[in-house]
């Protein structure tokens, strides 16, 4: 029996042990919340062999501390404050930085409050075996718990708590190691408060605590050089506090204090939202806020006030008469900022004058020309939360003061991020010369009001630009795809038989066969793309004696192998999805499962989870049942093979008959779906053919071909997903894992509707998905078959993306899937590569009484948390996949350019018009590009046209080009001379030659 006790809470200490606060609910009600806290004396200090604390084998801190630091010969422990983790995480993570660390609960909570990504990194850090980190729950220990005093900010309260814990630790060491009579007093190790905050240090020193800044600490280490580069840029409060800073002129307005911001938001005077940078124009950004239908526009550096894409910011909206329209121009920071000097120091204001003048000019000239509709315009007055991560960059070689490759002197250089949404970054490094031509990873530390650019520190080099490894890794980093190999703890969760695992012989005693149907005789086959290794679905169909048809969808039984809450499950949950790049697949589950044990290969017995319907010949469902099963697939077809087989009239075997049956039913199902208003969406999909795994250059790029059999498989997967969704929602109404696609707000379509009407005289009815589908069908241009696809692609971009959700967390009326026109939907059919499917499998297994539902899947908050991660991973994976295709399209273009001597020409559609250029879409390559003109030309924003005057067009007449026009472009890949960043450059060939414009 476990020890059950009552914790007594002394009444006299009610001040410390009770906490009252007020909370506002989503519906605006104010709630009084009373919480209590039990203070205790058994919270361990984590020092091995401590005589006062309950000893435990996982005490992380060595008894004598760390004795290798020069400043602390008697040994020490480091106790960092919150800011150390917020600003120096790269350093703390480095395997060169290994002091024993005392991590306070207060600090962890503050980090979580300030930055979720950093909190996750911190949690991973605590788990690392080689780091000696002890979490001390100071808020629960009676001597170290504190409460906020009247008038004290939360920040000050936490700082005080951290100092109190430091003092306690030092006392604790003293008390637990008293001097022994007749012996010299023992040399006690020191617990050192590590903080970047000078004021906090002063207070600590006054209280007799030992404290140190990160830089001082690192400088005192035995091998400081490598670590010094990892150090975040110096805080202005630190080390050289005066001269330079004082003399520097602020370039940006100061932020309003957080308290005032929050009050302003509450009062409805300020608005909070995510900052979106504009990829076409670095001097413009926007913040969507619920109060306005259009996002709040921010024009110019000062108004964007140091926000970086993704930050949560607070904007103030200007008076309506100052509202402006977004510029119609492409403004590129490389050209405008070409001459700015990275070595800023005190002279930024003067040298920068030129930049300011130039940018002002750009803005002014735009102002005159802004023609589109005005929208709320404002400025950023504060930041709620920075969402900075590590960014992949190139070093701008012109910003180097010395390119002497052996020089190890520190210099300040510019780093240009790969993403066009980010500003140029200022970086201090000792390794600048060796980093030229490499892809590097940097972390932004801060952005002062006196500095034009954010300041960052170097994390590591990824490799040479355009080398396959560097490009791949940088892509994974940019989209935050976890790609480390699976660790031992995870691999230990796999069956011990490994590749030799087989379904055991059928017997009543075998756990594998318990409650499983034997479907091994069933004529089941799989249909997939060529070379598919992770076959997670297979199908069958046969006539029933009553004239109906039995159809089965058999999905790999992944949840048999991935058990809830073990290390493999947690890893899969945090990866969320398998990521497909052109030349690499980053698996969600170890490949033993994906490509073998859970792959429904032909002629092998495999465990499956089957959905079996009885259908009428008209594809009406008579009934559906779900069962765990054992199957042995009879064939693995490619789409093409299945198609050929189906179309060959000489074949009458069971497999072929099955495929034909499936095909007829699928066509009826599809017709039914379309009639219900499902959308036929399109996205530019191209296929990259790689010559071999060694060469980096793809041999060809072509558009994906879709066959009837693609649609066959798709229809039945949709059907299975819908049937499963119904079942799990019925059984677990609070926590079913579902997927939905919200209907897009009508305003999203306004622009496209206007363009279609003005350019083609076509109307787009967006009142429902059915109406949209119908009017999309009518968007035809008899001369241009690709036009319809183009409109579909553009319409798809106006929509919201689908998302996973927990059924108990949203209103029943928002369950619908807009694109599929289904009232309910989930993902069940790809558990090898999507984590949501694994959850759906577990819920379905519980719903049919095969296993009880794991406790975690009863918890709404747990399901919500997991799905939040999965949704994010899913989005990132899509973007990473697209970026990978783009990279290879770029390589293919480069190769073609060399072979065809710069004459790569393709047809393209105009999709946007700018005052100084055109946005075009090359459907054959699935890429978008910009055609830029050096001079402004006649531009009609209302009618989406530009007109090239006869004089420039070197022809007899003016040439007008409009959105949806088909043009011919010449495509080149040019490398930026300074940063080596490759970019696609397009020039117009037809109807006019724009190379000289």
């Amino acid at each position, binding site marked *: 029996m476990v020890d059950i006790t*009552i914790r007594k809470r002394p009444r006299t200490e009610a001040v410390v042990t009770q906490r009252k606060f007020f909370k506002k609910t989503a519906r605006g009600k104010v709630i009084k919340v009373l919480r209590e806290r039990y203070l*205790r004396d058994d919270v361990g200090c984590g020092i091995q062999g401590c005589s006062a604390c309950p000893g435990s084998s996982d005490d992380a801190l060595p008894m004598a501390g760390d004795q290798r630091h020069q400043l602390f010969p008697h040994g020490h422990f480091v106790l960092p404050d919150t800011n150390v983790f917020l600003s120096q995480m790269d350093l703390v993570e480095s395997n060169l930085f290994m002091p024993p660390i005392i991590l306070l*609960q207060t600090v962890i909570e503050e980090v979580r409050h300030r930055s979720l990504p950093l909190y996750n990194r911190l949690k991973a850090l605590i788990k690392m075996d080689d780091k000696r980190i002890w979490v001390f729950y100071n808020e*629960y220990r009676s001597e170290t718990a504190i409460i906020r005093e009247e008038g004290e900010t939360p920040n000050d309260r936490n700082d005080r708590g951290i100092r109190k814990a430091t003092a306690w630790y030092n006392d604790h060491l003293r008390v637990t190691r008293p001097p022994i009579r007749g012996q010299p007093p023992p040399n006690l190790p020191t617990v050192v408060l590590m903080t970047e905050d000078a004021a906090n240090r002063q207070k600590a020193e006054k209280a007799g605590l030992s404290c140190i800044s990160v830089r001082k600490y690192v400088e005192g280490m035995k091998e400081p050089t490598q670590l010094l580069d990892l150090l975040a840029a110096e805080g202005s409060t630190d080390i050289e506090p005066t001269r330079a800073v004082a003399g520097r002129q602020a370039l940006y307005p100061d932020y309003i204090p957080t308290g005032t911001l929050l009050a302003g938001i509450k009062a409805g005077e300020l608005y909070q939202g995510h900052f979106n940078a504009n990829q076409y124009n670095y001097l413009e950004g926007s913040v969507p806020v619920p109060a306005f239908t259009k996002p709040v526009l921010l024009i110019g550096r000062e108004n964007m006030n140091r926000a970086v894409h993704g930050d949560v910011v607070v904007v103030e909206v200007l008076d309506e008469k100052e509202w402006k329209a977004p510029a119609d121009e492409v403004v590129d920071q490389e050209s405008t900022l070409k001459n700015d000097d990275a070595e800023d120091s005190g002279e930024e204001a003067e040298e920068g004058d030129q930049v300011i003048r130039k940018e002002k000019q750009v803005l002014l000239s735009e102002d005159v020309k802004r023609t589109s509709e005005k929208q709320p315009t404002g400025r950023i007055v504060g930041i709620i939360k920075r969402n900075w991560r590590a960014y992949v960059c190139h070093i701008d070689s012109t910003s180097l003061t010395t390119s002497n490759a052996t020089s190890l002197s520190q210099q300040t250089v510019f780093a240009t991020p790969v993403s066009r949404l980010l500003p140029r970054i200022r970086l201090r490094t000792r390794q600048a010369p060796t980093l030229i031509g490499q892809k590097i990873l940097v972390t932004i530390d801060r952005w002062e009001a006196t500095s034009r650019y954010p300041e960052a520190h170097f994390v590591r080099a990824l490799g040479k630009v355009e080398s396959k490894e560097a490009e791949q890794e940088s892509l994974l980093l940019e989209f935050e795809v976890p790609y480390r190999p699976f660790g031992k703890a995870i691999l230990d969760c796999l069956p011990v038989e490994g590749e030799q695992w087989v379904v055991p012989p059928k017997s009543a005693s075998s756990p594998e066969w318990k409650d499983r149907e034997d479907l091994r005789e069933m004529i089941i086959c799989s249909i997939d793309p060529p070379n598919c290794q992770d076959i997670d679905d297979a199908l069958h169909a046969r006539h029933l004696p009553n004239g109906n048809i039995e159809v089965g969808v058999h999905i790999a039984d992944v949840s048999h192998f991935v058990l809830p*809450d073990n290390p493999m499950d947690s890893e899969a949950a945090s990866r969320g999805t398998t990521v497909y790049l052109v030349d690499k697949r980053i698996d969600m589950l170890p490949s033993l499962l994906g490509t073998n044990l859970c792959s429904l290969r032909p002629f092998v017995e495999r465990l499956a989870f089957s959905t079996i319907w009885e259908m009428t010949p008209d594809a009406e469902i008579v009934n559906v049942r779900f069962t765990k099963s054992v199957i042995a697939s009879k064939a693995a077809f490619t789409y093409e093979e299945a198609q050929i087989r189906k179309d060959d009239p000489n074949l009458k075997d069971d497999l072929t008959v099955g495929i034909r049956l499936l095909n007829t039913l699928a066509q009826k199902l599809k017709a039914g779906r379309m009639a219900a208003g499902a959308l036929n969406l399109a996205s530019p999909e191209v296929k990259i053919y790689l010559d071999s795994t060694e060469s980096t250059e793809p041999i060809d790029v072509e558009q994906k071909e879709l066959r009837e059999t693609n649609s066959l498989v798709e229809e039945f997967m949709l059907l299975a997903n819908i049937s499963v969704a119904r079942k799990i929602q019925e059984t677990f109404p609070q926590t079913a894992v579902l997927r939905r696609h919200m209907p897009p707000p009508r305003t999203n379509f306004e622009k496209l509707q206007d363009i279609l009407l003005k350019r083609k005289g076509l109307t787009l009815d967006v009142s429902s998905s059915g109406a949209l589908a119908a009017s999309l069908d009518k968007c035809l241009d008899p001369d241009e078959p690709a036009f319809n696809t183009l409109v579909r692609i553009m319409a798809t971009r106006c929509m919201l993306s689908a998302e996973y959700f927990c059924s108990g967390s949203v209103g029943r009326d928002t369950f619908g899937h807009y694109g599929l026109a289904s009232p309910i939907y989930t993902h069940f059919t790809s558990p090898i590569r999507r984590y949501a499917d694994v959850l759906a499998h577990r819920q379905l297994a519980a719903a049919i009484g095969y296993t009880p539902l794991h406790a975690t899947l009863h*918890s709404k908050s747990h399901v919500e*948390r997991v799905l939040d991660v999965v949704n994010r991973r899913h989005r990132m994976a899509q973007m990473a996949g697209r970026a990978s295709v783009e990279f290879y399209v770029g390589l293919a273009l480069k190769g073609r350019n060399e072979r065809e001597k710069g004459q790569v020409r393709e047809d393209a559609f105009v999709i946007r018009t700018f005052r100084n250029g055109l946005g075009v879409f090359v459907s054959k390559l699935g890429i978008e590009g910009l055609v830029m003109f050096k001079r402004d030309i006649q531009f009609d924003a209302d009618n989406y046209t530009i007109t090239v005057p006869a004089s420039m067009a070197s022809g007899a007449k003016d040439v007008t080009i409009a959105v949806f026009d088909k043009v011919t472009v010449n495509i080149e890949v040019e490398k930026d001379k300074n940063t080596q960043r490759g970019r696609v450059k397009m020039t117009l060939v037809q109807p006019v030659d724009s190379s000289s414009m």
Partner: protein
Amino acid sequence: MGSRVEILNEGGFRSDGRRQYELRDMTIDLSQQGSADGSAVVTHGLTQVLVSVFGPREAKMRSQTIHDRANINVEVNVAAFSTGERRRRTRGDKRILELAATIKSTFEPVVQTNLYPRSQIDVFVQVLQQDGGLLQACINGTTLALVNAGIPLLDFVCAVTGGVHETAPMLDLTLLEENDTPNVTVAVMPKTGKVTLVTMETRLHVDRFEKIFRLAGDAGKVIHGEMKSAVKTRTSALVTAMGSGPRVGAGDAADRDADERMNEY
């Protein structure tokens, strides 16, 4: 986003600093309240209820009289200020009626009602403050108030809530924990080990149920100890106040005294 409070952190602490099997501070006040024949104010952490017992007395309404035993009438009233959200719960509120019915059916087999045919025992439960474990507080309070009123019971009824966070069982949940974990309330009669009540409003994995059920039963015995010593203190205080009778000493004698008194009626 889920809630930002960790129900059980990696160090094994719950959000209020307790460990899994630690119950909240429990206080019991058995002093006289108004004209009640017996009353008790019980707190578990920040949950506080006042239970007053009137009777046994003559049944007021004929329709409620039972010819061979006493009728137990339970009414629950939730003070508007008891939760953070000020909200008046009327007597007819379904949840409150359910709570009253649960208390009634828990005590019907425990109170020796057959000793008082055609009479009525009124139990009024006033919820003063709520922070999880409301039913447990009501049941423990009712037991104590009945004892205090001198109404014979077969045994104490001691209730505890248990929950399962992911896979870890926890006892005596706060409101925050109750909202986030599947939970059960178990009431036991410590002497016989009989379970008189198990309620569950959320789903719970069967495998976990057994464990938490056993734990809650054991915790009931711990609560019993607390209740017994409060009764003992109250009895000895009364005895001392009356200035007569045998002085009640510490230890088992007093223990038996309190227990036996109940059986004798």
